[in-house]
């Protein structure tokens, strides 16, 4: 019976959050934009059958036309195909980086928050340090030292360098939850630490983690685009930043080359920000970063 009660309570929580979320037009718009980008990535071969890497030698810097819907760049690449296929790299890098950030952030955050004491102090000073340097500067330093700049490597670096963001949120959640009565009572009934963490603390820390994950996806998409724009990304990847950079010197003659991939980055980030803000309001979360 008690199990049913818990489930009813859980469903109620999801239900009220969903109702709050649904009521806000902005967050729905965000969810729709994100869904569109995800679908674009999933069905890229159907939407844009042209190979985005193919160089159309006879058609360099062509304006938008029935053949090339969004024109071609200075190498004769089809901008439309590149924009559609570019969503795959963007989403993949961002999702991978968030996953790595989550794993490291959760492990260290739970560890520091649950155990507290000296260990917590040391771990928190280390996160302070990582938060001192602007992430893009850290990324540039880390990326510059590599011979191989594949998207997997860039994804890993982004995840590894940003774990302090997640760690802080997880830690503060764990710290506040572990003092609460239901956790205390679980402990007094002889539940092991692992059980307390996985059964009681983590499920109740989900909201801020979900919100932060959504907003961090936006940051990672921005950072990946920035790196490839600066020529520090994966040179072989079909990345929006690469195309924006290749159109940089043709702003007067071929404005479409930079404009459309830029719009793609903009809409994806906009969607994730709207979604993140909506989730924050619906789940009633307070996160330090504005």
């Amino acid at each position, binding site marked *: 019976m008690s199990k049913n009660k818990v489930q009813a309570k859980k469903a109620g929580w999801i239900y009220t959050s969903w109702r709050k979320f649904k009521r806000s037009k902005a967050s729905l718009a965000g969810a729709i934009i994100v869904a569109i980008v995800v679908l674009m990535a999933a069905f890229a071969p159907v939407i844009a059958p042209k190979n985005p890497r193919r160089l159309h030698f006879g058609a360099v810097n062509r304006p938008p036309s029935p053949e090339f819907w969004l024109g071609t760049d200075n190498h004769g690449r089809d901008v439309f195909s590149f924009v559609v296929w570019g969503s795959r790299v963007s989403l993949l890098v961002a999702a991978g980086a968030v996953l790595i950030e989550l794993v490291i952030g959760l492990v260290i955050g739970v560890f520091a928050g649950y155990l507290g004491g000296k260990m917590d102090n040391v771990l928190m000073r280390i996160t302070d340090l990582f938060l001192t340097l602007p992430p893009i500067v850290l990324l540039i*330093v880390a990326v510059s030292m590599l011979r191989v700049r594949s998207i997997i490597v860039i994804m890993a670096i982004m995840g590894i360098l940003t774990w302090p963001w997640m760690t802080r949120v997880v830690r503060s959640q764990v710290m506040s939850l572990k003092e609460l009565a239901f956790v205390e009572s679980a402990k007094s009934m002889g539940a092991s630490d692992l059980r307390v963490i996985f059964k009681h603390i983590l499920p109740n820390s989900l909201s801020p983690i979900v919100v932060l994950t959504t907003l961090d996806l936006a940051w990672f998409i921005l950072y990946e685009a920035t790196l490839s724009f600066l020529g520090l990304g994966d040179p072989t990847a079909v990345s929006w930043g690469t195309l924006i950079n290749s159109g940089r010197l043709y702003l007067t003659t071929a404005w479409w080359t930079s404009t459309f991939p830029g719009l793609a980055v903009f809409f994806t980030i906009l969607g994730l920000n709207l979604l993140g803000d909506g989730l924050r309001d619906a789940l009633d979360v307070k996160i330090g970063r504005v």
Partner: protein
Amino acid sequence: MDGLTEVGLKLYVVQRVALIIPLFFLTSLIIFSLIHIAPGDPVEIMFATAGSRPGKEVIEQIRTSLGLDQPIYVQYAIWISKLLRGDLGFSYISRRPVALIIGERFWYTIELMSFALVISLLTAIPLGIVSAVRKYSAIDTAFSLFALFGYSMPSFWIALILISVFSVRLGLFPIFGAHTIGESFSAINYWMDHIYHMILPAIVISTTNTAYFFRLVRGSMLDVFREDFITTARAKGLKERVVVYKHAFRNTMLPLVTFVGLSIGFILGGAVAIEFIFAWPGMGKLAVDAALQRDYPVLMGVSMIIAAMVLVANLVTDVIYALIDPRIRY
């Protein structure tokens, strides 16, 4: 402020300054190890960029002379002790002292950042107040929408659009650089020309921050409006203008100061790509160029300076916070 609290504040500042030293050392350790776990030998990279390849003995000799044959902790000790004497080593590419190169670039970045920060504050504060006062009006919705766009647009892309519209098509602003080359100006015109070059990049850098500052001002104004003392002030019959500016806005200064201080790092980070696009001769462009050429001493030097700037900005923020927050008394 009486004598006792003044002593307390001084003590706080001293403690806070002292904390910076270990932070700085540990930051240097992160940057040092980030670069030194790199695969590939710096000397080989040095010659690869120079285009020539000397024999094995010569490479060994250079390795020894640069101290690269020492264990890594010895290398770190040598590097940090040199750093403390202001010696940041030599660039692999230009062979000039890194400290000298950074010295040439430092003020360009400071100027550009300060300019951008002033633009952000001058726009965000009034717009945020107006939005908060007219909550949910058409004007509030419009401003909030602009803010949302502002922090969702990649700033390097905004830069390209502004360049193509204002510089290329309309010819209103210079496309790149910090000075008009090949012209001699009088002192005043030299500065006017310099500021003229700064306008577009500063606007671009300020966009994202204006959006964030706006959200913060609006949000905290709305929080303050809900407080009892505002109701009291209104009930006393004070003019709405007095309530907004004297009572409400003063209370939003606190979160604003903290937030501006903490965003110095983000502004510096954002400036990297923008300096690169506008060929602004600051530290951001230097960092990107150094990264593209794998000029590690320069990259390490720039990162250290940026880290130091962020640490100092955080320190100043904390001290200002202690000074203006009536609740904190030491």
